[in-house]
């Protein structure tokens, strides 16, 4: 795309609905879009800034991460050489982190609409209608690079940032989740990173008073030099009080609230868009420092102000701080801003325009108020002891004019920066497919030995050591605590609930990005289904390596294709998301990790399912069967990796029609009430691991009986540990209920088999060989605390 020269663009006060997903602000209030009569326009703007700042050079541009081609585009847009502040603004706005320049083309292929979607990608977070006049607002975002450099603050500010994305839109945050990926447990740095990240997430979320209810953790050597910290926040707002970021109303005041601006986090977005190398330690000063106490005050102050009719538009200052927030608000409203940087609350003296615009100091928001509402708003922020400053006004120039010390220090056209950012169609190659491994070719092991190994492997062990450091009960609505298939939060004051989960199996995605991404979506959908929820929508966090390498770009392209296919087939649209590229250290890329965060609704909390066995002598049923009746999919299974030390083979196929059919049946059975006593989906580790998890949760054993009719169809270890998709385990109260489930399954053509009976305090498979629950529990609960307490060298 050729950049358009923009001098003084015509003002379009209202965004066109065809081009921008910006809903009406608030129909009942007439004046928010009208010019403010009392406000006098600023004096005419000098085209060439009169500041003593140094001019940019191609070399400075390179140091700012702009390619030669991008710098030429800057020169062509401006028709002159930018000064340092202006160059800095271009560099952050066009960073991968802010501009999505490598992924945009492909993200457009994701399904983003459904009758229940109120607002899809493009705003701070996605908005979905949940009935009763309410919406759920949610998003997931990465804070990978900062968390690797400074784990506590990196993870903490990741939580802070995603909370702001959600309450910016008017929602009270009700839950946090996080998807974490660490390097090998043997790597000398891993323990330090786990400890710091977990403490940081807890330190922030606990203080803010939003429960951290779920998530996932994986360990793999590919993350040794580049961990992943993906944080998700879910909030609830009234349907008629959603706040958007499009500025409107020439002359309306632009207001800064929250913490003061300091020199921290300058260039965080640029850092987050570059590969790591041995010098990454030197980037520690680019990591922001969070203050959850201020965030808590900011939440309460913003929600208090949002209950009035003072706000026209609001945007949090996240990556690229004041720059991206002001440009996004102005660009969405097709307006300009005249900003006085001297009015910005500053933490230290002598800050330059460059520093003010690029600082990523935390806990700050930018808003446009209706004229005359400044005093009302100021009183609320004063009450909460937060800074409040009118730092500018909206103009009809379409330009961002920054003044400081009586001089214009930057004068930039907004649309070319925000809208005409580079977009690349990077070359890509498909990932070479792996051969399908036949179950008969995989050696069997004693099931007790294999189960013991799996239940104690880092990817399957109990995460209690982690989630006990998170306050998962504050707000008094946590109906399902961490450890189940999905967390469930009661909608305050009602008998309905939101189920939420995050999922991705990166080893599947490496072997086959498309099938792996389908699996991530399907597993999220299945986890919501397993608690009895109706899946609503998805947020994604696409973590990949350097997109300038065709193989990595191929992973991204194929993963998005897989997600799109699964989201379409399951009516599970993507409503928000984040892309994190350049997750590489010294040329080593991470496993492709398209994390899926998902939310579903439970209409009657009295009919919710949990995974714990509830009683003795309850029939155990297996819903769903292996694809094509072959079964026992061991390629890329944890059995292969942990027991046989092999990461080979194609990952399990996901048949989306079967997935949907099986899940729909399970949800109907749970919703019917009185039949299903426990439900769990079968995922990592396969059938026997799922049964062991149910047994441990209920402290009740199980006797598994293989089906004699199909005993020869596949080897026992393939049946016990295969990771075939679309399957669930149910327990039911008695034989009558079991018959009812069998009948219902037969009607829908869903395979359903009775595979055992609950009871006792051990697990048996076809006979006397047993493993006691105590033995399994010790392995399962012991690994993580033992590992974390082992000390050893911390690097």
């Amino acid at each position, binding site marked *: 795309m050729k950049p358009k020269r923009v001098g003084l663009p015509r003002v379009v006060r209202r965004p066109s609905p065809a081009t921008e997903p910006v809903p009406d602000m608030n129909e009942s209030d007439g004046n928010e879009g009208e010019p403010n009569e009392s406000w006098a326009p600023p004096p005419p703007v000098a085209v060439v800034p009169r500041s003593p700042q140094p001019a940019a050079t191609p070399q400075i541009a390179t140091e700012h991460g702009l390619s030669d081609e991008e710098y030429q585009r800057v020169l062509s847009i401006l028709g002159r050489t930018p000064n340092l502040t202006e160059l800095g603004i271009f560099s952050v706005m066009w960073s991968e982190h802010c501009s999505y320049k490598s992924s945009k083309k492909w993200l457009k292929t994701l399904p983003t609409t459904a009758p229940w979607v109120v607002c899809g990608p493009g705003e701070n977070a996605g908005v979905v209608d949940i009935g009763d006049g309410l919406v759920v607002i949610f998003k997931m975002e990465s804070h990978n690079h900062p968390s690797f450099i400074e784990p506590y603050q990196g993870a903490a500010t990741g939580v802070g940032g995603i909370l702001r994305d959600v309450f910016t839109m008017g929602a009270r945050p009700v839950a946090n989740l996080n998807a974490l990926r660490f390097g090998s447990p043997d790597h000398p740095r891993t323990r330090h990173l786990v400890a710091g990240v977990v*403490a940081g997430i*807890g*330190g922030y979320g*606990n*203080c*803010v*008073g939003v429960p951290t209810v779920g998530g996932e953790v994986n360990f793999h050597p590919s993350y040794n030099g580049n961990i992943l910290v993906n944080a998700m926040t879910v909030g609830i707002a009234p349907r008629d009080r959603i706040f958007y970021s499009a500025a409107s109303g020439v002359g309306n005041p632009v207001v800064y609230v929250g913490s003061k601006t300091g020199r921290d986090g300058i260039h965080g977005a640029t850092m987050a868009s570059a590969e790591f190398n041995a010098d990454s330690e030197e980037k520690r000063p680019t990591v922001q420092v969070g*203050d*959850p*106490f*201020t965030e*808590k*005050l900011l939440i309460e102050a913003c929600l208090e102000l949002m209950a009035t009719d003072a706000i026209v538009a609001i945007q949090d200052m996240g990556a690229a701080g004041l720059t991206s927030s002001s440009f996004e608000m102005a660009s969405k409203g097709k307006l300009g801003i005249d900003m006085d940087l001297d009015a910005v609350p500053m933490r230290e003296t002598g800050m330059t325009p460059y520093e003010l615009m690029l600082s990523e100091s935390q806990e700050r928001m930018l808003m446009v108020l209706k004229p005359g509402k400044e005093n009302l708003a100021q009183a609320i922020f004063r009450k*909460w*002891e937060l800074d409040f400053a009118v730092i500018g006004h909206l103009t009809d120039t379409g330009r961002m004019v920054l003044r400081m010390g009586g001089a214009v220090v930057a004068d930039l056209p907004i649309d070319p920066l925000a809208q005409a950012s580079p977009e690349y169609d990077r070359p890509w190659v498909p990932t070479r497919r792996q051969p399908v491994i036949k179950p008969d070719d995989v050696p069997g092991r004693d099931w007790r030995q294999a189960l013991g190994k799996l239940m104690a492997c880092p990817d399957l062990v109990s995460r209690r050591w982690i*989630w*006990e*450091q*998170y*306050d*998962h*009960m*504050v*707000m*008094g*609505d*946590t*109906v399902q*605590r961490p450890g189940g298939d999905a967390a469930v939060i*009661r909608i305050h004051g009602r008998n309905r609930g939101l189920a939420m989960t995050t999922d991705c199996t990166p080893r599947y995605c490496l072997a086959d990005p498309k099938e792996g991404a389908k699996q991530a979506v399907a597993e999220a959908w299945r986890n919501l289904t397993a608690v009895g929820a109706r899946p609503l929508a998805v947020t994604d966090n696409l973590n990949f390596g350097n997109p300038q390498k065709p193989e990595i770009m191929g992973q991204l392209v194929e993963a998005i294709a897989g997600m799109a296919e699964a989201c379409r087939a399951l009516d599970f649209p993507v409503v928000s998301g984040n892309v994190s590229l350049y997750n590489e250290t010294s040329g080593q890329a991470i496993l492709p990790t398209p994390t899926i965060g998902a939310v579903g609704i439970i209409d009657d*909390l009295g009919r919710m399912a949990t995974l714990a066995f509830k009683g003795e002598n309850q029939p155990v049923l297996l819903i769903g069967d292996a694809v094509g009746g072959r079964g026992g999919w061991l390629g890329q299974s944890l059995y292969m990796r942990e027991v046989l030390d092999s990461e080979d083979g194609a990952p399990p196929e996901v048949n989306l029609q079967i997935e949907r059919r099986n899940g729909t049946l399970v949800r109907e059975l749970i919703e019917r009430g009185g039949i299903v006593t426990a439900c769990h989906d079968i995922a990592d580790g396969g059938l026997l691991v799922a049964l062991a998890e149910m047994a441990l949760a209920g402290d009740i054993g199980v006797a598994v009986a293989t089906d004699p009719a199909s005993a020869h169809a596949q080897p026992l270890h393939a049946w016990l540990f295969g990771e075939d998709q679309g399957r669930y385990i149910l327990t039911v109260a008695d034989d009558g209920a079991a018959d009812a489930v069998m009948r219902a399954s037969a009607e829908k053509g869903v395979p359903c088999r009775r595979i055992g009976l609950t009871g006792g305090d051990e697990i048996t498979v076809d006979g006397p060989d047993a493993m006691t629950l105590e033995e399994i529990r010790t392995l399962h609960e012991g690994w993580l605390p033992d590992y974390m307490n082992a000390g050893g060298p911390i690097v």
Partner: protein
Amino acid sequence: MKTAVIVFPGSNCDRDVAVALERSSGQAPDMLWHRETEVPRDIDLFVVPGGFAYGDYLRAGAVAAHSPVMREVKARADEGTPVLGICNGFQVLTEAGLLPGVLMPNMGLRFLCRDVYLLVESHDSLFTDRYDTDQVIRLPIAHHDGNYFVDDDTLKRLQDHEQIAFRYCDADGAVTAAANPNGSRDNIAGVFNRERRVLGLMPHPERLADPLLGGIDGKPMFDCLAEALS
């Protein structure tokens, strides 16, 4: 019962405890902002909720103990108005001198959120009348600084005057080191003042006062306060 829940900047269990109070008493409590200097005369019970008052900066509860509203709460407590402090509220009450002892960082130096078992040491109070002495109840804790410490003399006084309200125990009621989540002296989880009209405890009774949340062992505390103060 007319209750006032104190709200500091950084309180975050104010709503949770208000819900539990209203469920037991049928009456929504007043929410008292920390700057209040004029507190209604007819308050029957003050509740200092959990959270991170003033960010727990300086020391948990230290800044809050000197806030304007706490001067009023102290004066009323001296007159005999009951005060309940939960978690951060317990920390505030010790810092304010309404209860003896201090709450230090947990022995493991980590925040801990989990259900614990508590031995009811005394049912003889406004707060614990609906429990039996030596009853074992289950309540959640969620704190970083819950390690209760008192010197030997104070501990002896607490014991002599039966001011210990709850102690951490195992599911069978045995008070053991393994059942102590944070290193508290003598497994102490909650204490009364001498008059047994001020109670501070680290566990959260408001978090298990609703069957849907997994238990109701916290509910009797609010029920008996509602009954005693109506």
